[in-house]
């Protein structure tokens, strides 16, 4: 960022959306929004030469290319780890913040940041390959498909677990592959085989763990055949995720749920969907000097959600009863009765 911005201010409209003019903070001289920094610097050297040149002499010399690069790498790491948009470097507030901390650093543009992150990714991938080549132990992989709610893209995440030369158990994300189209076993298999070849793991993989989805099961079976036929890897075995099996068992039991649980679920949905009820619940919590905890609604795909829904209701039972009494017409019929609560309590014993 140019040093002239220490002396000039961008004047914006009331909504802070449009820049109206650029004003000198020393003499209030006004310039158009498209005025170049060269013109602004000429103003400073011509009109305020004593202030500008003496301040400029005090300034430390700019960073060398290596120093500048070192800071940019750290900036790129923060942007990638914190999931910031590349355009954050072009935000005026961010630029001012960095300039306040260190006026010697020139913030790169978003294209440079993108290149830097690509470079970091390649470098990290190479490091993993080098590390894998430095020892000969077996590796175990886990994989799952996850769909981002942000860009509605599906990703195949593959994590590697291994024991290094120091006998320390290690794990790292091996890849995070965008998946387009149907999540077929053939597609998943091809992605995994490509990855195994890239990292030269065909003879070193001992297991693949996935959920119990039919596509994953088929992929595991086909991978075992492929490794045996093409790479004589007979030690590979396909594993099913144990936590997912517990979830399947719980879901099998949930088919026999008592109606009292369904009633509690409707009660929770009613409260969560009403801002008035939520505000009243918060007020009751304040009066009772109790921490407000949002009612939890169970979701089929979220593990432990029914347990958590019941547990949360038990914790909040005293304030919930006050809420029910103050909104009898809406909530009385939805709230479990004293004879239904013992049936609900049975579920948290499991």
């Amino acid at each position: 960022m140019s040093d002239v911005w220490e002396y000039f201010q961008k004047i914006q409209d009331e909504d802070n959306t449009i820049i109206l003019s650029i004003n000198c903070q020393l003499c209030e001289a006004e310039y158009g929004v498209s005025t170049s920094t060269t013109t602004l610097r000429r103003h400073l050297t011509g009109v305020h030469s004593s202030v500008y040149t003496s301040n400029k002499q005090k300034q430390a010399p700019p960073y060398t290319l290596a120093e500048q690069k070192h800071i940019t790498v750290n900036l790129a790491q923060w942007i990638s780890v914190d999931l910031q948009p590349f355009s954050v470097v072009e935000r005026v507030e961010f630029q001012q913040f960095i300039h306040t901390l260190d006026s010697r650093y020139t913030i790169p543009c978003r294209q440079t940041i993108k290149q830097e992150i690509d470079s970091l990714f390649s470098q990290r991938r190479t490091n993993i390959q080098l590390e894998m080549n430095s020892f000969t132990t077996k590796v175990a992989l886990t994989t799952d498909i996850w769909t981002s709610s942000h860009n509605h893209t599906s990703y195949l995440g593959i994590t590697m677990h291994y024991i290094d030369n120091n006998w320390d158990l290690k794990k790292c994300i091996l890849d995070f592959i965008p998946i387009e189209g149907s999540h077929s076993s053939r597609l998943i298999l091809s992605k995994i085989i490509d990855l195994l070849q890239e990292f030269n793991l065909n003879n070193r993989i001992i297991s693949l763990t996935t959920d119990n989805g039919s596509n994953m099961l088929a992929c595991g079976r086909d991978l075992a055949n492929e490794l045996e036929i093409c790479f004589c890897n007979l030690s590979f075995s396909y594993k099913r995720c144990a936590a997912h099996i517990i979830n399947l068992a719980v879901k099998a039991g949930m088919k026999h749920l008592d109606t009292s649980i369904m009633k509690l679920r409707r009660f929770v949905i009613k409260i969560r969907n009403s801002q008035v009820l939520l505000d009243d619940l918060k007020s009751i919590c304040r009066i009772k000097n109790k921490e407000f905890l949002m009612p939890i609604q169970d979701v089929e795909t979220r593990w432990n959600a029914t347990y958590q829904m019941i547990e949360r209701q038990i914790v909040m039972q005293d304030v919930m009863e006050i809420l029910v009494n103050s909104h009898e017409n809406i909530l009385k019929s939805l709230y479990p009765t004293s004879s239904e609560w013992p049936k609900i309590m049975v579920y948290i014993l499991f």
Partner: protein
Amino acid sequence: MYKATKLLSSSSLPTQGDLRLTFLGMLASLQQYNGLSNQHNIVNAIYNKLEIYWHKHLSESSAISAILNSHYKTTIFNNLVERNECIDHLKNLFSSYITNSHITPNRTSEETLQTSRNYFLNMINRQVHSSAENIEFDEIDTYLNTSNDINADPLLW
């Protein structure tokens, strides 16, 4: 079920031993509830599902790893027959590893000289295989006969 899910999902390094512990614990706990609870349908449904997966996909594949975990060793088995079968299988596996690789069993320094003599004697007498097996089984038996240590690092035996 909640505790089991939390244990397996939140642990940074869950082992096959942890898996056996939680699954056998859940099955035992559900059997206990089946007699007490008035929710037989739910208990039965969960138990049956877990039991199917346990016998079909988990029990056999987790046994050897669980024995080699110094936290549990042979404590997490349903019965003696299954346990002894797994120990025999482990010994066979260990033998084949020793035969097919350069791995040597741990020996104390006092034993080293004696072992070297044995080695040459065995070379002469062509009895390398049987002698090596004894050393291997000694190591497994020593491991199994020492008490479990829940605080030990399973990778440091």
